[in-house]
């Protein structure tokens, strides 16, 4: 036998979380290098595209506000179209960030550490895009604050709290605030490390202001650890509640195709599924161009592929149950939606595209080579993003366009304003993300240092932590461009 027992055991060992011999000094240099580098050409080009798309977004918003909601393709019966599809799509994408930062923290999954900052930023920017749509969809966004929040206006009337749409307002705004504060609390020690490794006065003052004077005191870390854990503990049920409530926007109505008890778990799983797909879509190029391959290793990518496969299967179960219950209920309207409108109606192509992207494509992640190959990961992730968008399209548009009475039926076509809003939010999201990658630490530096220290201590009880020569201010200057 050519294979020894040692070789066989080595093959079972998981891939490393941090590659190479790293210490605090090398992690400082490599993880923050992108912030101190002059901007790359590719980054500048993408920022320009992002700016152009953001311009288009604001033009489309201006047209919507100036001319009214009639500029969209919405009609009766399809009163909820792109506005709500895009809202649900973006808010779902946001869910992976909280899952990675909070739920995986509680489960003590160490592979979350180098990707959590990245995913949390993605959550924030995605929720911002999502929040745009319902506000614009009110038609008169300048009144939205009186309609949506319990504000004592001269109308003297209060919001109707028995509506899931009101629950949604509270859920999404709580979610945004929680994600923002969780993200910022995690950023403070890293902003302090940027302040302390900066060489220009301007950078030192700017990062210094945002670091709030953090000095890494043990008396602060003592409270910090607990505050961070408690925020994670609160964010965990919160993230489940947010997409549950989003699904109630549909499930609590009586429309065939919406009125289903499977919706909450199926929406939450779908949200995590699409969110991980978006994290992979962004992370695979970013880790290459930012030189982060030593902390975002194939182990991280493989774990994310496994989460996509698992949540994808939950989503597939949701599809199966929807169809089963429609048949089992004996309700002709339910059966018509699931067995005629969706598979044979005018939007059947969208239905089959959804099934291809969300049911067939993720099955390749059963195979190890597909989980470890950058191209199968990236292309699969992009297709899942597309599939999840079409899932919401099918839930909303196909259910609405042929409801109860055939005389009520109508087709829906998006207008150029609808398409500009969708394209525009993608560009605006990308722009915010690019600025984040350039100006803030994209990897949680202090957490990776702590993990690296733990990994070295854990290795056979011997401290492999090689004493690094301390970084003097002079050396820092020498290493920076």
């Amino acid at each position, binding site marked *: 036998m050519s294979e020894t027992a040692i070789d066989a055991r080595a093959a079972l060992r998981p891939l490393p979380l941090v590659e190479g011999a790293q210490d605090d000094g090398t992690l400082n240099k490599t993880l923050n290098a992108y912030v101190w580098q002059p901007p790359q050409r590719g980054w500048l080009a993408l920022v320009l595209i992002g700016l152009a798309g953001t311009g288009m977004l604001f033009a489309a918003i201006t047209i919507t506000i100036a001319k009214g909601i009639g500029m969209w393709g919405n009609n009766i019966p399809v009163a909820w179209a792109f506005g709500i599809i895009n809202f649900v799509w973006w808010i779902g994408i946001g869910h992976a960030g909280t899952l990675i930062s909070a739920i995986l923290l509680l489960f003590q999954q160490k592979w979350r550490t180098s990707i959590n900052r990245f995913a949390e930023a993605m959550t924030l920017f995605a929720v911002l895009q999502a929040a745009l749509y319902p506000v614009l969809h009110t038609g008169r966004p300048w009144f939205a604050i009186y309609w949506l929040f*319990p504000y004592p206006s001269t109308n003297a009337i209060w919001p109707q*709290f028995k509506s899931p749409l009101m629950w949604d307002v*509270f*859920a999404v705004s709580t979610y945004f605030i*929680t994600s923002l504060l969780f993200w910022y609390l995690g950023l403070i020690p890293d902003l302090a490390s940027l302040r302390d490794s900066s060489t220009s006065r301007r950078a030192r003052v700017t990062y210094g202001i945002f670091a*709030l*004077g953090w000095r890494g005191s*043990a008396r602060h870390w003592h409270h*910090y650890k607990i505050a961070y854990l408690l925020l994670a503990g*609160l964010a965990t049920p919160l993230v489940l509640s947010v997409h549950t409530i989003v699904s109630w926007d549909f499930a609590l109505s009586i429309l065939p195709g919406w009125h289903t008890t499977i919706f909450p778990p199926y929406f939450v799983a779908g949200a995590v599924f699409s969110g991980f797909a978006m994290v992979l879509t962004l992370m695979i190029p970013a880790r290459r161009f930012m030189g982060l391959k030593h902390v975002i290793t194939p182990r991280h990518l493989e774990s994310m592929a496994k989460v996509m496969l698992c949540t994808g299967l939950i989503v597939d179960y949701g599809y199966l149950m929807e169809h089963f219950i429609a048949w089992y209920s004996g309700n002709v309207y339910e059966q018509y939606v699931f067995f005629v409108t969706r598979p044979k109606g005018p939007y059947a192509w969208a239905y089959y595209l959804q099934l291809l992207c969300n049911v067939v494509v993720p099955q390749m992640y059963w195979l190890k080579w597909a989980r470890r190959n950058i191209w199968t990961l990236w292309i699969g992730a992009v297709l899942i993003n597309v599939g999840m968008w079409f899932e919401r399209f099918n839930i909303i548009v196909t259910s609405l366009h042929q409801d109860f009475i055939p005389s009520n039926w109508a087709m829906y076509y998006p207008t150029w304003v609808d398409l500009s809003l969708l394209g525009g939010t993608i560009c605006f999201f990308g722009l915010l993300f690019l600025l984040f990658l350039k100006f803030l630490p994209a990897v949680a530096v202090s957490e990776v240092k702590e993990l690296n220290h733990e990994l070295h201590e854990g290795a056979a009880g011997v401290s492999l932590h090689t004493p690094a020569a301390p970084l003097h201010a002079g050396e820092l200057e020498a290493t920076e461009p």
Partner: protein
Amino acid sequence: MRRFVLGEFSQPDACVQAARKLREGGVAGLDAYSPYPLHGIDDALALPRSKVPIVALTGGVLGALGGYTLQWWMNAVDFPINVGNRPQHGFWTNIPITFESGVLIAVLSIFFSSIFVFFGLPRTYHPVFESERFRTASLDAFWISAETADENAVPELEQKFREAGARKVHTVAESV
């Protein structure tokens, strides 16, 4: 004028052991600084239990009660609207917003109490930053400080820091 004796360590474990030794040797006003939380430092410095969980619980309970009361008062007392003859005071339909407001107020109280009260931030100045070398505390070194108002106690403290294994010891004074 407050003075801070600062000792720098290259290893986290050495820093924790030194902190314990100094505290047991009767040094008062100790603190430690590190780029990431040090394992065992809470015990070495004999820090009292954090009060963050109590703040979080209080915030969460008050937020949930407030959220429920808000919905009950607005929809059942101040401006009741009859929708399909459903009860004005809908207990179950009030639950989602009660949960969300509980989480919101708990999160806000954790964050702001930590920053403003427990960390005492934001602050523009702290004497330890008088040392240019203290920059490494957020990068790759571990520091211990002892605060004293007595200038004559400094040489003895510096000696104790060296005995505890600090690779570099110096003293900074608060600039007023």
